[in-house]
């Protein structure tokens, strides 16, 4: 009997296909928006999690100045030096320290000319930041000490400069510096903010300081804690040593900051969650509007089909049967909208995932929820029109012109 009613509802819906489509458009858009938002949000959270994991969890970022981000952060604070890095590395709590300095440069090879970022650091950087040398080798200690003009390429940059060719042994140019490619890094993909992590060059820090920047500063110290050392203890030891080295008296504020990766990760995820929630609630409002559209059309439909209802009542339909018919019609209508919306939403999320270079991670739960919710919208907004239909007086309905 229910299947029969559904068939009947489909008939009524297809009889006026264009109007039915326009009616459910609201639900389609609402559901599509919710699905797309949630799916993209989930993909980017996953991305954050993955890239944080790739950074290593037991790593501290140490930078001059009071805050990590924001304007005026590091203006007056003195920079670090390579001696700071060596001193930190001697702490028992610390496993390795990678001093880092970065600069934007144009890399040239043959006719290829690519703007990229150059990171000056030591071989420890590979450990601290979880990079693997895919081909070739890391810096030798002699090259680090001498500031030799050698470099290791990120995968994106390699592709841009060399295409399919093997770059090891080739010589690229940065400013006036000719630099021999000794290695190639395994790709990591997009980072937490959707940036391309593989578009960079690694050089010995002394080479970057002397040959490219002409100074001795270190802008960041990336500190990997020894296994079994808690983050809190690591931070305490690092801060104590740096306060001493930078001659900060008791009671004076730090002129540097220490941030751990877990902190960064949770910050990024919470921003993500708030954004997703906000956009989803906007989308939910459009679902509500879609439901009201369905109610409106169902009311029009009840009026339009007053005579039909009269005929059905006259040949013996009960109030409940008429009610069921219109309710099922509303539900079928909005569920069709829901299914279209789910398809559209997933399609949009897939496109967005391609463009933003994040994983496409549709969740069955959300899809099922959207489906159920669209059915629910049909019941809620179909109820009133259906009840109106069921309460019609058969004689009045038959006489209706």
């Amino acid at each position, binding site marked *: 009997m229910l299947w029969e009613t559904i068939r009947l509802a489909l008939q009524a819906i297809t009889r006026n296909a264009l109007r039915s489509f326009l009616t459910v458009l609201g639900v389609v858009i609402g559901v599509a928006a919710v699905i797309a938002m949630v799916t993209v949000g989930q993909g980017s959270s996953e991305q954050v999690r993955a890239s944080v994991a790739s950074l290593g969890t037991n790593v501290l970022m140490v930078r001059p100045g009071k805050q990590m981000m924001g304007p005026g952060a590091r203006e007056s604070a003195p920079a670090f030096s390579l001696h700071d890095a060596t001193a930190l590395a001697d702490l028992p709590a610390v496993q390795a320290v990678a001093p880092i300095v970065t600069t934007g440069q144009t890399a040239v090879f043959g006719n290829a000319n690519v703007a990229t970022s150059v990171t000056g650091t030591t071989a420890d950087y590979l450990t601290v930041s979880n990079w693997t040398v895919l081909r070739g080798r890391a810096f030798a200690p002699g090259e680090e000490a001498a500031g030799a003009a050698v470099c290791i390429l990120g995968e994106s940059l390699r592709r841009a400069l060399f295409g399919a060719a093997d770059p090891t042994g080739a010589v690229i140019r940065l400013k006036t510096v000719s630099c021999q490619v000794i290695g190639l890094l395994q790709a990591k993909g997009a980072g937490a903010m959707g940036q391309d992590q593989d578009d960079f060059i690694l050089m010995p820090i002394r080479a970057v300081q002397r040959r490219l920047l002409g100074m001795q500063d270190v802008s960041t110290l990336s500190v990997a804690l020894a296994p079994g050392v808690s983050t809190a203890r690591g931070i305490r030891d690092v801060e104590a040593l740096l306060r001493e080295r930078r001659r900060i008296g008791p009671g004076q504020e730090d002129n540097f900051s220490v941030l751990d990766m877990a902190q960064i990760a949770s910050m990024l995820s919470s921003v993500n969650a708030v954004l997703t929630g906000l956009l989803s609630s906007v989308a939910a409002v459009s679902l509500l509007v879609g439901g009201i559209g369905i109610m409106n059309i169902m009311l029009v439909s009840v009026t339009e089909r007053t005579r039909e209802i*009269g005929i059905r009542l*006259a040949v013996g339909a009960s109030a409940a049967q008429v009610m069921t018919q219109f309710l099922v019609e509303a539900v079928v209508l909005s569920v069709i909208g829901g299914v279209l919306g789910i398809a559209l939403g997933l399609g949009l999320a897939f496109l967005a995932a391609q463009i933003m270079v994040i994983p496409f991670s549709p969740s069955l739960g959300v899809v099922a929820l959207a489906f159920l919710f669209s059915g629910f919208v049909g019941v809620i907004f179909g109820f009133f029109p259906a009840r109106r239909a069921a309460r019609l007086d058969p004689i009045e309905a038959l006489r209706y012109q």
Partner: protein
Amino acid sequence: MAAAQPDAQPPAQPDGPPLIELRGITRVYGTGEAEVRAVDGVDLTIRQGEFVAIMGPSGSGKSTAMNIIGCLDRPSSGQYLFNGVEVAGLSRDQRAVLRREYLGFVFQGFNLLSRTSALENVELPLIYKGLGRAERAAQARAALDKVGLGGREGHDPSQLSGGQQQRVAIARALVGNPMLILADEPTGNLDTQRSHEIMDLLTRLNRDEGITIVMVTHEEGMAAFARRLVVFVDGRLARDEPVAPRGQGG
């Protein structure tokens, strides 16, 4: 009027058990100044197997009475027994069941569902009886055959002539094997030729299947097909008499 079809029919007036018993039936519309007594104290008994024509001037309460007999409407006062059951005591849904199990309606305006095939229109009452699809289709086909529309099952009302549409409506009325068919001006929209075809059909259903028929008409020629004539004036019964068999002048 020269009736063209002098069928020899068995003249015996049916004397089965009473199917419809109206006792002091009154239907009042509105209140106070605007009060209209559309039906005013009607007593009428119709027995199983009868073919009754109701006539009367416009506004005399014929349709109102038909609606009450058809359990679509309830009287303001008076007693109505259908097949021995007091209808006044029935709920809306119980009356719907009664309509679906025992009654068939034929309206002046056909009242078919548009953009719905003849077959599906005829199937309509069976849907509410809860019959399966195959059984519905079989019974609806049989009903369409009976009214001479076999082969037009798939046509929409818009693809059928007025006479054909009315025959679809009759098929819909008789598909549930009703005891009673109520026809309110069934030939009102048809020319004489089509009207006679419809009347022949109703006559056959009455004679061959024993279905009781109550029909409202404005035309003497149509009333002549019935075997009893009831005349309403101002909501009251003005006349109630047997109809002379056709072909003997009338």
